[in-house]
């Protein structure tokens, strides 16, 4: 017998010895599973979902979250969504599974069909809109377009150089419409509050290649943020899941430069450099999740697709609003006042949640998405005064005219 064979033998024995098959089952609890694409403490997209899950546990007695983080081919090559669902349902007793990424859209569709007794919610997907989804699968997405317009406005109020950088992730319809919403907000406020010619506003989008930094594969967001500032931008707005832009701005401000940043996704994202943060548009999934969990517990849940509008009364009321905006420390009182004015204006045009039932109705608004607007190549998108239909915004094909940056990956 060789040494190597012994290693294996002892391994076997070790596993046998440590094995013990006891696992407890809870009593009166309602278990919901949450599957995250990134780490639960990423200060971005995934953490926003994770905190919402904790919020549900707090609001609904007996609700217990089980979660799995970093489910993607790179971090968990050994695990598929189906295995996780199987695990959560059979070992933990989950009745509801939240798959919180676009990446899980197809898998959720397939797995939902195999577990008809479990309710599935896929965040940011559109299967319930297109009608592909089985009846136990619904979608939800916050109308971040509003938050991005506010972010753009805040950037325009602060900029001294008239140059704004937008750190884009990869290029698709969602990222195009979000980047464009920022641009619309910035253009509006640059003209109406700063009294400048919007044609003088430089708005540059650089795509790093993915939602977050994959070293060696994407461009490095830290280097990109530095490059924006070096090239003369004084505000960098993050469209990616993580907080590099605000960290870089903080570091530069410490060197005495007048620069700012706006992160994304998570209400606490300013924390890494609050002194340069103009504010953050964030997702607040808590209220939606509470409502979903409650309705599943009650047996009143119905399938749906929802693009949820902000709670305009108070964008920081985390018990109500699905999409929020919180002012940053770097915003001066005067700028804050102007921003409040801008938000009030948006609130007026706000028309509530967009759902599978009403998406093609006339007059539904996403704020500044009003003509005249051209796509980047000059193709008209909407004529003077015409509201861009929400469906066209959801599936936006190009960036808007006036923005610098690529509209497609090719």
């Amino acid at each position, binding site marked *: 017998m*060789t*040494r*190597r*064979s*012994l*290693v*294996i*033998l*002892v*391994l076997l024995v*070790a*596993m046998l010895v*440590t*094995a*013990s*098959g*006891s*696992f407890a089952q809870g009593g009166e609890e309602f278990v919901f599973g949450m599957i995250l694409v990134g780490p639960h403490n990423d200060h971005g997209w995934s953490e926003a979902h994770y905190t919402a899950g904790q919020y549900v546990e707090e609001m609904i007695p007996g609700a217990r979250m*089980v979660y*799995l*983080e*970093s489910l*993607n*081919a*790179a*971090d*968990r*090559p*050994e*695990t*598929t969504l189906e*295995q*996780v669902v*199987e*695990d*959560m349902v059979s*070992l*933990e007793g989950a009745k509801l599974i939240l798959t919180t990424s*676009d*990446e899980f*859209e*197809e898998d959720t569709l*397939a797995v939902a069909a195999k577990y008809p007794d479990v309710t599935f919610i896929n965040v*940011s997907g559109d299967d319930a809109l297109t009608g592909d989804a089985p009846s136990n699968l619904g979608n939800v997405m916050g109308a971040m377009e509003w938050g991005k317009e506010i972010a753009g406005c805040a950037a325009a109020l602060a900029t001294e150089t008239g140059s704004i950088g937008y750190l884009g992730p*990869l*290029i*698709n*319809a*969602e*990222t195009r419409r979000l980047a464009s919403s920022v641009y619309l907000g910035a253009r509006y406020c640059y003209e109406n509050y700063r009294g400048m010619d919007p044609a003088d506003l430089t708005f540059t989008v650089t795509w790093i*290649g*993915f*939602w977050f930094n*994959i070293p*060696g*594969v*994407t461009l490095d967001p830290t280097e990109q943020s530095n490059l924006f500032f070096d090239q003369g931008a004084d505000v960098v707005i993050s469209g990616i899941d993580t907080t590099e832009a605000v960290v870089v701005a903080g570091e530069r401000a410490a060197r005495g430069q007048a620069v700012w940043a706006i992160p994304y996704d998570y209400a606490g994202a300013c924390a890494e450099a609050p002194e340069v943060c103009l504010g953050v548009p964030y997702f607040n999934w808590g209220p939606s999740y509470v409502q979903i969990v409650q309705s599943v517990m009650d047996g009143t849940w119905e399938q749906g697709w929802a693009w949820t509008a902000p709670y305009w009364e108070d964008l920081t009321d985390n018990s109500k609003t699905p999409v929020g905006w919180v002012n940053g420390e770097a915003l001066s009182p005067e700028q804050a006042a102007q921003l409040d004015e801008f938000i009030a204006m948006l609130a007026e045009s706000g028309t509530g949640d967009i759902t599978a039932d009403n998406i093609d109705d006339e007059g539904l608004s996403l704020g500044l998405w009003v003509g005249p607007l051209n796509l980047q190549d000059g193709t008209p998108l909407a004529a003077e005064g015409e509201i861009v239909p929400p469906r066209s915004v959801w599936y936006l094909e190009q960036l808007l005219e006036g923005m610098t940056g690529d509209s*497609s*990956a*090719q």
Partner: protein
Amino acid sequence: MTRESIPARRLIGIGVAVGSIAVALLLTALLIVAVNASPRDVFDKIWEGVGLAGGRLDMPRFSGVINFWIPLMLVCTGLLVTFTAGLWNIGVEGQMVMGAIFATWVAQEVSLPSVLLVPLEMAAAALGGALWGLLAGVLKTRGGVHEIFGGVALNNLANIFGIYLISGPWGNQGGQATPPFREEALLLPASSEFRVSLVALVMVGVAFVVVVMALRGTHWGLELKALGKSARSALLLGVPTQRNALLAMAICGLLAGIAGSIRVLFTYGNLRPLVSGGIGFLGVLVVLLTGTRALWAPIVAFFFAAIMVGSTRLNIALQLDQSLAGVVQGILVLVFILANGISARLRARRQAPAAEAASIPPKEAAHG
């Protein structure tokens, strides 16, 4: 040379094995305690995640281990070839990705009945992986770029290309994966209980047996062995060294490509970013642990797969980061390598007076 008695040798063997594993387990336990968790819980949950808790086999869960073992084992099989030839093919990750990309291309573009389509996809994947492996080989033999560096660069290039395809030409709205393949383009599980592709399983078995027999029994296998031990001498003894090095890289790439195709045709049903997921690197660790004793590769690979699959359970039940699996594996291999050195040293000391040399001939340096 004085010869040791067989019992003494066996005793040392036992010492090394038990010692390595004990030390590795101890170190791992310390690390677990360092992040405020209980080692016992960790092992319990891993066991549970693998589907072996409670004294009975949970087949669906256990299938997860087999499903991870299959691509890992294909990669290990390929790496046996390159390691025998003395090549550090850590480009095996990229070769998997290229295989996945080629398979995806066929799955998306070709419309055929399943019995023809799936083999075609796999053939394309094998071709893709082999070409990518060959490229690293050509860079080494013709361009003097050491395969470690060529491999690292080509891994990243393959991933970048994959992400480009996913977010660009082959993307759907999300940009996180390609649209799912049609049913007939997929490898299917054997049953709802035993969720393993029999085709893939048979393939691994055949590939492993063929490769091991070829390495042990054929003249080509002997040539590779000579090449791996001394490229220069092998050349002078008439071994076509360049051709064999390229062939070894191509074969490893071919198997890695098939492993990649299993990832997209079975595991996921579409192409995803970084689809190789470190399986190639894990394969390198397995082969480092088993050395040339090829027959142990399937077993070690199985344990590595079990640790990986079990680690998912750790995150759900104990909120521990999945990197623990990699830590356990890394420590085990490291401790084992060191223990080997220690036992060789002890042996050398015991026969010191006559020891002409316990010295290992210097291996080829990483920089060519």
